[in-house]
């Protein structure tokens, strides 16, 4: 067995090597070479991750923690941060997802990007992203996590604006970065609050110190600190009110959307909260806010998803919605469930994005689902894998999404910090999800073909379909490691491996008498489960009917809702509101500040002072009229004055 320090070093540095190898020859158009280097780099990382995972498995449950510190990064006074990294039960899952799904997406990209001029640069960026993401999840302190946190934001910026000659795409990248920055600013202050309160930013130490917190009120330091961290998370994980960048981020290449904007980066906020669960538990108010924001995001984004026609936009809003579920989970204290959904979502959403990428590729860069339909026969593999992903996301048992979503809904209902309203919102979200995902399937793959005659759709090559198939498999079986107790015991004592694995790191919320539902209430759990599955199923069927059997009925429905439909179709005008309410006033304010304060006040004021000197100069200048006799007179007057002063004394 290799030393874990070396493994972590290789894990981190392998993508850097890939980045440098590709980055230094960024002009090359040899997509095979670039893709191979980049994919190999991530595969090496994946192997390291697996080896680390095996090491963790070997260790006993209490000592599953491989820490390494490479060097002292910042050390000023009491503020000491090491370039330290930790592999434990949570982060090992993340690195497996990142490098595993990451390698599949790299592989997919070779096929998807082969015609692009900047393919080498593209792979360099992807490797850089993997590196930053690994730092984010492995960092042992909030600040090292923040390094990756900003780093992935940077890569996201570069990749969204990858086709920079399109002004809108470049603007989308910028929007993503700046919106993330708003969250990051809050994150920074949040770190300060925690540092001043606990005297450390090391997450292990923070978690150990968490029970010492006494003040859990709104104004308590922990509540404020966690709230600020959560604002940071809303930026990165696209929650209300900072979710607006994610739909625009679809401007990037589709594999990027799959990797960054579905599977890995956007889940960073959830991951951060799970890492710091003891601290967050000490701040019930923050948890409440998280749960509410998560639930509302889940519903809101789902409603927008109902009306979109861009295949990637639908998936983007779906991602926002699913992230809302994860926040709902961590908000009610179901950290394990949140992580579980994070993982399953990574599988099926990556799958769906890659599937959509395959569709877009096959359709020659067409993204509007109104111009698709009946693709089933042209792209059988894509269709089949997409179908599995669809079943997973709408939560059909026994696909992965079912287990994780069900766990979240049950926890939202039963947890001491849960509430039946949160459960209701979750179910509503699930119903909506089922509807719009079915609509997406129907419009894209089923029904009659509306494809333009000039387009000849074709199935993608192997490098693209293999990742699809692997991810499809994972979407099916991925949920089986976290089978709920009620079902597990019914099927013959299948253990919930997931819960067991995470147990040492996940803090249980102290149950408060009279609140929530006892955990053992299995009949209720089954009833709720059945209700949500049935509702989602009905919703999916109605969508199927509406979009394949009775064409035109969707337009009627849209008409019936009229202005409401318009509002949703225009994404509740949130972007416009931000522009009208914040950005434009800010730019105008800046113009006015510059014009009125800088140019017309400060400068004018200093000119006035200069004018005084200037005026004095002009006065004295008038005396210097060049007439020598005048000068002589001044001498005379001067002598008279001095003399009379001397004499009169």
């Amino acid at each position: 067995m290799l030393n874990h320090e070396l493994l972590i070093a290789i894990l981190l540095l392998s993508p850097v090597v890939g980045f440098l190898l590709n980055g230094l020859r960024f002009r090359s158009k040899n997509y095979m070479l670039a893709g191979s280097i980049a994919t190999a780099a991530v595969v090496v990382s994946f192997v390291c991750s697996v080896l680390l995972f095996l090491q963790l498995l070997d260790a006993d449950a209490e000592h599953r923690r491989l820490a390494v510190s490479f060097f002292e990064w910042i050390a000023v006074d009491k503020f000491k941060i090491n370039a330290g990294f930790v592999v434990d039960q949570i982060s090992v899952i993340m690195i497996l997802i990142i490098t595993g799904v990451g390698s599949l997406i790299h592989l997919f990209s070779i096929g998807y990007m082969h015609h692009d001029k900047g393919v080498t640069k593209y792979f360099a960026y992807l490797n850089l992203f993997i590196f930053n993401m690994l730092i984010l999840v492995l960092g042992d302190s909030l600040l090292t996590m923040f390094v990756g946190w900003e780093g992935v934001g940077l890569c996201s910026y570069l990749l969204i604006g990858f086709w920079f000659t399109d002004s809108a795409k470049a603007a989308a990248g910028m929007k993503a970065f700046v919106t993330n920055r708003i969250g990051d600013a809050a994150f920074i202050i949040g770190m300060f609050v925690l540092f001043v309160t606990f005297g450390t930013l090391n997450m292990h130490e923070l978690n150990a110190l968490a029970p010492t917190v006494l003040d859990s009120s709104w104004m308590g330091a922990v509540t404020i600190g966690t709230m600020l961290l959560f604002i940071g998370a809303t930026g990165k994980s696209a929650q209300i009110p900072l979710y607006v960048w994610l739909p625009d981020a679809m401007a990037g290449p589709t594999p990027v959307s799959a990797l960054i904007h579905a599977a890995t980066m956007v889940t960073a906020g959830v991951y951060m909260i799970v890492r710091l669960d003891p601290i967050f538990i000490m701040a019930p108010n923050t948890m409440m806010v998280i749960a509410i924001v998560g639930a509302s995001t889940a519903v809101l984004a789902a409603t927008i998803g109902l009306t979109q026609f861009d295949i990637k936009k639908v998936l983007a809003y779906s991602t926002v919605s699913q992230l809302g579920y994860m926040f709902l989970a961590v908000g009610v204290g179901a950290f394990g469930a949140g992580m579980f959904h994070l993982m399953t979502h990574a599988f099926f959403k990556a799958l769906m994005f890659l599937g959509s990428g395959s569709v877009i590729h096959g359709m020659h860069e067409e993204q509007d689902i109104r111009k698709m339909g009946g693709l089933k026969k042209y792209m059988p593999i894509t269709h089949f894998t997409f179908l599995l992903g669809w079943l997973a996301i709408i939560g059909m048992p026994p696909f992965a999404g079912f287990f994780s979503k069900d766990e979240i809904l049950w926890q939202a209902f039963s947890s001491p910090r849960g509430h039946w309203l949160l459960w209701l919102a979750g179910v509503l979200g699930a119903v909506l999800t089922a509807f719009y995902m079915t609509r997406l399937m129907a419009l894209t793959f089923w029904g009659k073909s509306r494809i333009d005659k000039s387009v000849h759709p074709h199935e993608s090559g192997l490098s693209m379909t293999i990742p699809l198939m692997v991810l499809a498999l994972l979407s099916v079986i991925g949920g089986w490691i976290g089978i709920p107790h009620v079902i597990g015991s019914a099927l013959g004592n299948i253990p919930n491996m997931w819960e067991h694995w995470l147990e040492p790191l996940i803090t249980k919320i102290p149950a408060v008498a009279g609140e929530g539902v006892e955990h053992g209430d299995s009949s209720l759990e089954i009833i709720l489960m059945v209700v949500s599955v049935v509702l989602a199923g009905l919703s999916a069927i109605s969508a199927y009917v509406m979009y394949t059997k009775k064409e035109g009925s969707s337009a009627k429905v849209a008409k019936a809702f009229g202005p409401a439909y318009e509002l949703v179709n225009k994404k509740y005008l949130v972007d416009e509101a931000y522009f009208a309410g914040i950005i434009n006033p800010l730019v105008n304010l800046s113009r006015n500040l510059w014009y009125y304060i800088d140019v017309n006040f400060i400068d004018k004021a200093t000119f006035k002072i200069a004018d005084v000197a200037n005026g004095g100069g002009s006065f004295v200048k008038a005396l210097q009229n060049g007439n020598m006799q005048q000068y002589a007179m001044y001498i005379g007057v001067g002598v008279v004055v001095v003399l009379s002063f001397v004499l009169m004394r």
Partner: protein
Amino acid sequence: MILSGLIFLPLLFALIITVWPQRNTVRHIALGLSVIEFVISLAMLQKFDPASSALQMVEKTTWIERFGISYFVGIDGISLMLVMLTTFLVPIIILASWNSIDKKIKGFHAALFILQTAMLGSFLAMDAILFYTFWELSLIPMYFIVGIWGGARRIYATIKFFIYTMAGSVLMLLAIIFMMRLTPEVTGGQISASLLDFYKLRIPFIAGEFFTAQTLLFFAFALAFAIKVPIFPLHTWLPDAHVEAPTPGSVILAGVMLKMGTYCFLRWVIPLFPEATEHYSWIFMAVGVIGIVYGALVAMVQPDVKKLVAYSSVSHMGYIIVGLFAMNAYGVNGALYQMLNHGISTGALFLLIGMIYERTHSREISKYGGLASALPIFTIIFVIVTMSSIAVPMTNGFIGEFLILLGSYQYSPWVASIAVSGVVLGAAYMLWMVKRIFFGPAGEIVKHAAHDKEHALHDLSVRELVVLAPLIVLIFWMGLFPNHFMDYSKASVDHLIKNKMGYSLVLTGEGK
């Protein structure tokens, strides 16, 4: 002797340049000489003892005995890195101006070397009058650099620059003379201009009363330095000076001369007037924070890219002021680090803008667009420098900004909360600028260049890459291993923070 050598060798170099017979080798000679100077400063760095907070390599000779004025130079952790920055930037500037300065080459390089002497002197002088001499001397070459090799409105800009700075220094001179008159209290009757004697003075301070000696002296000094920094309402000379200055002038102005202001806050104002500093720090916190936000906002709407960077300097300098007046280890260390960062990243930005200006002769953002396709390497480097400027982790900017924010949070969470908005706004204006210049469809200039062979855009030449490479290396080096740099200053800063109410410096002579 090494410090005197550092200070006065450039003066000798200036002399050599002026009498050098061949016009076409002046640049080579100047580059060689400036590299020699940098190597000497490296030797000095080698001799420096980072563990000690003492004033090292001290040289002291009587200059004007009657007034206790002496030639007194020394170096400690606070000035060390700024000295290194100065000697480091000059060769880069000379190499960067290889093509852009084409008239009066000798005069330009001589002015540059005299400026270097003045700046190094200001950083190293430990005698008030000596310091004042160097401080004022630094204005003159800068005046000529902007006034002779500058842009269209250069005369307006130079005069504005000169008068603003001069106005502040006059008050400072008065304050210095006043303090010299107080020194017999601590030296036993002999008048003295030594900074160390000034440190011993305990100038009376009454909280809340403005017309007390310490308060007045504090504001007299602070005003002079605040103009140089520049702090918010006194900043309007900076954009004009930057826009009109030639590229090398902008780099030296942003890279070193602004640091003279912040450095002097740390060297003079804070240790000399500790009570007043503490009592009035809220003013500087306020203007610092206003500067951060205001500079960023105004930068956002600038049509001229150089002006944009100039206003971003105002914003960055606001951070430094906030860090300094937070008066704790994080803030001051961060501010000191940020001084270096700003010198490197803003210096690099000005260099890059200069390079693109050489090609297109335009600085108007709206005329650009789509430059990334035409100049890919240039774009990559520009984006890296931009990232450093907006403090993305793993670049140098992050360390400084983070520590400053942490320090200001300890001072007051509210200050940090407002200051942190600079993080967002900084990203907004820089990335917007990057987007408008490099991304999007080809703009007027790129289109024009595509049609016209004479004006075709060439990517960076080897010389330009050599100019930028050290800066890029430093950006990452300082971002990944800040301790390599910060270790030199920690002892001195700790000493200052711990003894801020009774600051004094121990002397050690040449060597250790």
